[in-house]
Each structure stands twice: as structure tokens, then as C-alpha cells.
């Protein structure tokens, strides 16, 4: 198999993970429990994910904030230490380079987390547009990342971490925390639609942390979860995935992420194009399957003979109990209550547009 091993590779094999290549890394798509049980564990109890494939970039120096404000559509001018803030990163033409999370460690000292498959592209883009006094370092290989997600995540973490090391608010972090005696960044973030934590730590500590958490969470029903459940969870929670709902061709506004684009900001890459483009011709909507079948990505969406758009992701949602999809549809199609059909391998499957998110905790 092509791809890099994460620091947890041996643990996945021991846990019976079915290994696949994803974003340049070898990761488990599921364990023997299967995607549905893994998905349900996160919705009803808690699950553990290896997300070490994510990229980490340090942005530091007197002009760090100014560089982020230039590179990213969100505004980083006013932000407290220990907070995390999501942002798309755009090309000059308003298309999307990637979406990412910025943590503020302290003034002009930021920890940026990007998608695995985009890491090299992102780093090249960021350093290519660097100005003034700032350093940018790709430290991805130094870090392992583990996500503990679900309504019982905090209960599990409380057994291993001091009260003051557990971030209280969603999208905040403690940078010098400890889980057991393992130093790590403890962040209250995730990609599942549930409460939960993400731990960034030295790669060599990752196996010990993985096993420590699994052991501590036994009574709460904590199980390891693979990429399959990560995808169904994020889809059920209607979170965008780069390469699907966001791409060089899909602007943040079209993806429904307009509130992360601060056009009131003095300038940022892509601002002029985004303003000039106005309302996008197609926008992201949710589809709930009302007919028989499962809609996947890249399927045509029709109303009668009219092609109104394409799906970007789709699956059966284990928790909701029905199949859903996200699609980019012509802006005149109502985002709620429109009856459409997706062309699934030559067969038409009925669906209706529904408000996003499909699932909200």
C-alpha cells in the first residue's frame, strides 16, 4: 500500500483496523465493529479517531496576524489567546485553496491545522504570499493527533486530565495540557457534530495516549473509529469536506460558508473576486432521499428534464436512519421542500431539499 504510516499504525493493526490509503497516509477505514456501530458510539457514547494525517503549520512573528488576515477570509484581528477559529483560504479568483483551523497561542503566535491531502499545497501557497517579519514552519511530522468525540468524551477525559487542563468552551484549547502524564495540546473541537476533544502531541507519545484513552473509556463505551465513521458523522452533521463541498471551483459563499468570509475586512486574497461575483449561481443544499436507493457524490440532480446541479457527498446516515446527500444546486431551486431526482447509475432516485444541518446535537 502506498502512503505514510501514522504513529498509530501498529495500534490500528492490533485493533483489527481495515487499512486503506487516504490523503497520502495509511489509515483504518473501519475496525471489526463496522461503520454503523462506530458511528452510533460517537452519537450516543464516545469514539476515538487517529487524525494524525492532518497537517500542522506554525505561523509566528511580529507580522503573523497581518499575514493570516491577508491569507484567510476570516478575521483574526481580535482574538483571545487559547481560542480556535475556522476559516476558508481562497485563491485570487475566490475559489478555495483549503479550509483550516487557526489556534491563537499568544499574540503573533499561531498554530494552524490543515487538511492532510492539501498540506503541501497550502504550505506553498502560504509561504508564497508571506510578507514582513513572519516565520512559517510545517511541523506536521512532529505531531500525532487523536480525536475523542461524543457526549461522554468529557467524562472520559476527566479521569485523565486536571480540571484546569480541560478547555471549557467549544473552539478553545489548552496548549500546555497533560493527559495522564503525556504533554499535549487539548482542544475542544471536532469533525463529528458532537462535543469532544482533539489532542495534538509528540508523534512518539501517540501510541501510549491512544491506549491510555481506550482503557480509561471502557466503561463509557469508548471504541476506536475509522475514516468510514468519520465521513458518515461529518456528513450527517453537514460539515463540508474539501474536494467535495469545497474546491478550487467552489467558493466559500457557494458552499454556504459566507459567514466565515469577512468582506468588511480591509483586504484578503480573493476579496475582490468574491465581491464581484455577487450571489453564487449554485449553492450547497441538503437532500433527503424520499425514494429508494442511496445517492453518492458526483451524481446529476434533475427536476424533470432540467439538470439543476450535482451531488458532492452522500451516504446512508446511521443515526438518522435514512440516506442523505449534499449537492450544489442552481440558486433558484428552493433550499427546502423542492422535489428533485438524482441519477444513480442510470436510475432516478427521488429526494427533497432540506435545511442543513441534517443532524444537530
Amino acid at each position, binding site marked *: 500500500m502506498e502512503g505514510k504510516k501514522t504513529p498509530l499504525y501498529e495500534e490500528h493493526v492490533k485493533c483489527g483496523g481495515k487499512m486503506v490509503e487516504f490523503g497520502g497516509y495509511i489509515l483504518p*477505514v473501519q475496525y471489526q465493529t463496522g461503520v454503523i456501530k462506530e458511528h452510533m458510539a460517537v452519537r450516543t457514547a464516545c469514539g476515538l479517531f487517529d487524525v494524525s494525517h492532518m497537517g500542522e503549520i506554525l505561523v509566528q512573528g511580529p507580522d503573523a496576524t497581518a499575514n493570516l488576515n491577508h491569507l484567510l477570509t476570516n478575521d483574526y484581528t481580535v482574538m483571545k489567546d487559547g481560542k480556535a477559529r475556522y476559516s476558508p483560504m481562497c485563491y485570487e479568483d475566490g475559489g478555495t485553496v483549503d479550509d483550516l483551523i487557526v489556534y491563537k497561542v499568544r499574540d503573533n503566535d499561531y498554530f494552524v491545522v490543515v487538511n492532510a491531502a492539501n498540506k503541501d499545497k497550502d504550505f506553498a501557497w502560504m509561504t508564497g504570499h508571506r510578507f514582513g517579519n513572519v516565520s512559517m514552519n510545517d511541523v506536521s511530522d512532529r505531531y500525532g493527533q487523536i480525536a475523542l468525540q461524543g457526549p461522554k468524551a468529557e467524562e472520559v477525559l476527566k479521569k485523565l486530565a486536571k480540571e484546569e487542563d480541560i478547555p471549557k468552551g467549544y473552539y478553545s484549547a489548552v496548549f500546555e495540557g497533560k493527559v495522564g502524564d503525556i504533554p499535549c495540546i487539548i482542544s475542544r473541537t471536532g469533525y463529528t457534530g458532537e462535543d469532544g476533544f482533539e489532542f495534538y502531541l509528540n508523534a512518539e507519545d501517540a501510541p501510549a495516549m491512544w491506549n491510555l484513552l481506550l482503557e480509561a473509556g471502557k466503561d463509557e463505551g469508548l471504541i476506536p473509529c475509522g475514516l468510514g465513521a468519520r465521513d458518515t458523522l461529518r456528513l450527517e452533521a453537514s460539515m463540508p469536506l474539501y474536494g467535495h463541498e469545497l474546491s478550487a471551483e467552489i467558493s466559500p459563499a457557494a458552499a454556504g460558508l459566507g459567514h466565515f468570509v469577512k468582506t468588511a475586512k480591509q483586504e484578503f486574497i480573493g476579496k475582490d473576486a468574491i465581491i464581484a461575483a455577487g450571489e453564487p449561481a449554485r449553492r450547497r443544499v441538503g437532500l433527503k432521499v424520499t425514494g429508494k436507493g442511496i445517492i453518492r457524490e458526483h451524481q446529476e440532480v434533475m427536476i424533470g428534464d432540467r439538470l439543476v446541479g450535482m451531488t458532492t457527498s452522500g451516504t446512508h446516515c446511521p443515526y438518522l436512519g435514512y440516506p442523505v446527500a449534499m449537492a450544489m444546486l442552481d440558486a433558484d431551486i428552493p433550499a427546502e421542500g423542492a422535489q428533485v431526482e438524482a441519477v444513480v*447509475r442510470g436510475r432516478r432516485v427521488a429526494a427533497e431539499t432540506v435545511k442543513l444541518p441534517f443532524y444537530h446535537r
Partner: protein
Amino acid sequence: MNFPKELKYTKTHEWIRFEDDNTAYIGITDYAQDQLGDLVFANLPEEGDELTAGEAFADVESVKAVSDVLSPVSGTVSEVNEELADEPQKMNEAPYDAWFVKAAEITETEDLMTAEEYEAFIAEGR
């Protein structure tokens, strides 16, 4: 993994249980369901549809992907297991009870394997 002796098997991981020379039940094997993962939907043919040996007559969807189910025989669909539409998890839980269709008027049969042959075939990793 379980491979009942009274069934015959295909290289594409379907099982077939002959009632007599002209009628048989068809489903997917324990190995197939294990490889596919949690199954959530079966797209089944209709009664009276024609079956062609070696060609797809149904498809199954897991949370991850869709896969064709090929017919081991040529004939006609005489019965469809509608239960699979409501309880697709039956294909995972009891793959040899979860028949897809009953085939009748069988005119042609693919090369089939016995349980021992099929088990050896899987062990070879194919």
C-alpha cells in the same frame, strides 16, 4: 467464516441453493458481506425480470460503496425477497438466509464451486 455444504458458490461471491434443476435461491456469501461492511440498501429486480448468467441482477449499498450482485444462472425471477428492503442488515447478520431472488426456468448455469473449493478460493486471497 461460514460456508454451508449444501450451497454452491461463484468466484464473485454469490451463493446458490438449488431446489431442483430449474429453480434456485440466490444470495451473497458470508465473505462478501464481511468485505462490503455494513449493508444499508439492496436494489432488487422485479418478479418476471430475466436473469443472465454472469450479469448483474441487483446491487447492494454499504455505507461506503455500491457493489453489483451477479447472477450465477440464466432464467427468470419468480420471487423477490422484499424483506431485504426493510431490513438490509439481514444480509450481514444471516447472509445465507438473506436470499435476494428465487430463480425459475433456469436454462444455463455458471461454473460453480463447492463449499470446500470456495473456501480454498478465498484462502488464496482472490
